[in-house]
């Protein structure tokens, strides 16, 4: 296919905020200081499950420098969910700002605002609590048993699926006739997989500063991915109308989903309303691990049936997930475990999108830290189980794992019916694949990793080598739900302001939106001054999650720019006395057959000369398509059979993200997602003691890979053209996180002939698997 030539799109444009980032000038929430600002601290529960019989804060209140102490006695008792999702949030409303009961070690008990952080900490120690310690559930498999203590006793169930059985959420979907599919299979492979609990570990901790402006409105500066959801969700909790709240997102130091949560804003705002003073709360690194959000630990039963020729006849995933003490994203993450993984493959009765698929997920409460949204959003667990099972099936069928996958992968034009039945927390939307580069990804990745040679490698000795691969997909936004809007206005120097509610959390989306707008306006991306986000000044955006910003907000930027273009050309026709059809926009100028004028001159004409107006436009975009990006990941590993250590020597990721608006940034997203996925596969895992206390809430004991731990990674961008995306773009940010666990697990199997079914693949687990082999 011949691709149109772009000037801005497809270029490795320097990040529009890059200079501020590399010089330390970028201002994060922590860099904002307000006169009279107080420091907030939160008292955290020492017990996994306990009732507060009495809480005495008098001594803390009397401490000089303490301005306010909040307990469950003096905050509004309103149930809500911390999940920053569109209204109505599909997550159970099971949380109070402060409750009379605590449900995990680290749960909020009380909050203090004081002149200094030291005084606030001192005050926390002076709050006396009399506890009734309750029996706790620390194991998700125990949570539903009849004698398990009940974790939530709400006045109303509020969408908790089954509070008596500690079930936060459940979902079950069947497509086609899986029973028949399995019965018709020549071979059925079925096993259990376990995926541990990990942390997003953005380097900037959660932080929030609240204050009142001169009109008495509440101003919330917060490190968030979802400023508009923050505004809406806190409104009832602070008893203010939405219009009296302004949420500002300055620069964010990473989020990865964990900042799709409304965590600190309610308590911080209540402290401001109580004291009238600006209040700041910043989590310590330990609090970040304990009390922000984690990936859901899951136990997955994965089952695949196939004919002896390699045709898949049915697939099944049954998931038990640990949502921890609260059900933030409990339903939607688990939906995604199935909806992102299973529709990647056809079954033999495939026609009109019908597959033989069964998916069931149950998210249970435990008295452990709270799970939530994290990059990949359920898909990393799903792909670990499903892709490992496919690899095992290929081995048993004596087929090359790639040939087996190729035989069953979806194709352009397919419309997997499961996606119609299984959306995010509700029914889905019919999808037709309009772009699919998955086969090209596999081909290019195979060549780069030297698949044939490495699969045929002779193996033996203490250190064994193996190569494995996995095939992945994700989505682009939530179809029919995610909406992004962009406002653009033109200035006299030909530059323009682009205002968006979308939140660049480091992904480079500000730059991507600038490149898209610049492409339409025939100017340079650095002529675009991006401002994001402020609920008073920027139009609505659902926020940066679900791999949505390039695909959804990018299209809004394109539409707004097209409207500006129309207005500019209309003026230029008069100014140049030329026909509309003869005008083009190039290098910041409108060019006619004879003459040209700059965008700045057009703006000056509009502001000062003729039929005055501000040239500006606002456009919104929503999509009922959710085009999946595709990827093939390959890992070449060395496993030491004496120590159990797994080393990844080379990693290859070939990704079809449609048109890469900025190839360098798309590569960066892929590299970063692989880094997170490598930690998930190899080293990262929460460890608890028998009282539910997190034993490794610090980077020394919770191992994130450093620069010298990383393997050589080769990223290959495989271009396709997605007709529903801006200039052919799809998403790229989440998909890479799904790859390392299955690709490395499959490589370990190739190296050792032993399959590991639990991530991370620690040396202990490798040795245990070898012993049991």
């Amino acid at each position: 296919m011949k691709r149109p030539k772009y000037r801005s799109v497809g270029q490795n444009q320097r990040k529009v905020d890059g200079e501020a980032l590399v010089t330390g000038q970028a201002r994060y929430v922590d860099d904002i200081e307000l006169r009279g600002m107080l420091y907030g601290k939160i008292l955290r529960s020492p017990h996994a499950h306990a009732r507060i019989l009495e809480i005495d804060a008098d001594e803390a209140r009397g401490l000089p420098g303490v301005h306010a102490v909040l307990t469950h006695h003096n905050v509004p008792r309103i149930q809500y969910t911390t999940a920053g999702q569109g209204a109505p949030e599909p997550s159970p409303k099971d949380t109070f700002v402060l409750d009379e009961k605590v449900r995990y070690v680290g749960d909020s008990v009380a909050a203090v605002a004081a002149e200094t952080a030291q005084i606030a900490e001192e005050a926390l120690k002076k709050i006396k609590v009399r506890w009734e310690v309750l029996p706790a559930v620390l194991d998700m498999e125990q949570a539903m048993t009849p004698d398990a203590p009940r974790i939530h006793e709400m006045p109303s169930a509020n969408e908790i699926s089954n509070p008596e059985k500690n079930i936060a959420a459940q979902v079950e979907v069947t497509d086609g006739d899986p029973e028949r599919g399995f019965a018709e299979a020549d071979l059925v492979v079925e096993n259990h997989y376990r995926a541990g609990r990990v942390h997003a570990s953005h380097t900037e901790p959660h932080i929030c500063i609240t204050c009142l402006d001169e009109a008495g409105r509440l101003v919330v500066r917060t490190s968030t991915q979802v400023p508009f959801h923050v505004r809406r969700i806190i409104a009832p909790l602070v008893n203010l109308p939405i219009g009296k709240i302004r949420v500002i997102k300055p620069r964010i130091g990473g989020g990865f989903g964990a900042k799709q949560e409304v965590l600190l804003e309610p308590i911080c705002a209540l402290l401001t309303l109580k004291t009238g003073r600006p209040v700041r709360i910043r989590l310590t690194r330990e609090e970040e691990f304990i009390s922000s959000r984690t990936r859901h630990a899951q136990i997955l039963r994965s089952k695949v049936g196939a004919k002896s020729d390699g045709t898949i006849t049915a697939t099944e995933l049954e998931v038990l997930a640990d949502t921890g003490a609260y059900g933030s994203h409990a339903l939607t993450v688990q939906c995604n475990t199935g909806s992102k993984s299973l529709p990647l493959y056809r079954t033999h009765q495939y026609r009109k999108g019908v597959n033989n698929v069964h998916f069931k997920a149950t998210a249970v409460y435990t008295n452990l830290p709270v799970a939530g949204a994290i990059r990949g959003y359920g898909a990393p667990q799903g792909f670990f189980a499903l892709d490992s099972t496919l690899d095992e099936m290929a081995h048993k069928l004596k087929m090359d794992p790639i040939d087996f996958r190729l035989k069953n992968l979806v194709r352009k034009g397919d419309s997997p019916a499961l996606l119609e039945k299984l959306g995010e927390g509700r029914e889905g939307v019919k999808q037709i694949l309009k772009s699919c580069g998955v086969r090209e990804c596999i081909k290019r990745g195979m060549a780069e990793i030297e698949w044939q040679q490495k699969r045929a490698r002779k193996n033996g000795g203490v250190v064994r080598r193996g190569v494995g691969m996995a095939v992945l997909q994700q989505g682009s936004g939530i179809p029919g739900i995610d909406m992004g809007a962009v406002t653009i206005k033109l200035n006299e120097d030909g530059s323009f302001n682009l205002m968006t509610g979308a939140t660049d959390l480091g992904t480079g989306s500000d730059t991507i939106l600038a490149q898209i707008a610049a492409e339409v306006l025939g100017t340079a991306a650095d002529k675009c001054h991006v401002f994001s986000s402020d609920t008073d000044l920027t139009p609505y955006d659902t926020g940066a999650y679900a791999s949505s910003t390039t695909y959804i907000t990018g299209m809004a930027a394109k539409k707004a720019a097209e409207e500006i273009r129309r207005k500019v050309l209309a003026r230029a026709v008069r100014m140049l006395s030329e026909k509309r059809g003869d005008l083009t926009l190039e290098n910041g100028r409108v060019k006619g057959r004879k003459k040209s004028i700059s965008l700045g001159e057009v703006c000056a004409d509009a502001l000062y000369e003729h039929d005055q107006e501000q040239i500006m436009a606002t456009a919104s975009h929503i999509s009922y398509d959710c085009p999946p990006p595709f990827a093939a990941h390959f890992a070449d590993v060395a496993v030491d059979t004496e120590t159990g250590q797994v080393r990844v020597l080379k990693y290859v990721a070939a990704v079809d993200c449609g048109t890469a608006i900025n190839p360098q940034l798309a590569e960066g997203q892929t590299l970063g997602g692989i880094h997170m996925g490598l930690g998930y596969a190899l080293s990262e895992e929460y460890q608890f003691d028998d009282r539910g206390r997190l034993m490794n809430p610090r980077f020394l004991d919770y191992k994130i890979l450093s620069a010298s731990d990383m393997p050589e990674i080769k990223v290959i961008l495989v271009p396709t053209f997605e007709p529903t995306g801006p200039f052919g773009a799809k998403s790229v940010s989440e998909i890479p996180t799904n790859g390392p666990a299955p690709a490395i697990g499959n490589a370990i199997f190739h190296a050792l002939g032993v399959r590991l079914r639990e991530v991370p693949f620690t040396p202990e687990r490798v040795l245990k698997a070898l012993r049991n082999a």
Partner: protein
Amino acid sequence: MKIHVTINGVPTDVKVAPNEKLLDMLRRMGYYGVKFGCGRGECGVCTVILDGQAVMACLTFAAQAHNKSVITVEGIGQPGNLHLIQEAILDHGAAQCGYCTPGIVCSAKALLDENPHPTEVQVREALKGNLCRCTGYQKYVEAILDAAEKLRETSGRLE
């Protein structure tokens, strides 16, 4: 107590508390490029250069900087006057959220001042204390190797 310290080339007397960390002192003075990430020397976002050595400002007492030179990211290059390391980071699209970037710039500067010909392994070693969750480090490593080469060319021309 009062210390005498040269910050980004400017000699200054600063009143500090005996237990005050260099991180808190610098941020209090407006050097916001020095970030807080963990406060216990585990993430490296507060990395600054103390007498030529990359150190974590959250583990260093302000008093330890007495009679010494401190370089923060603000002293390495400014908007419109970028250091080649910063230019290279931009050219390679290495920075994402940017929270760890000032620390990485400082680690890279300390490395290249000491060793103008680093290998990739040496660059990775020098960045070992700078955790980054966004990038997988690869583009930073490429950028720093690229900057090293450009710095060698520049210094070659000057000689």
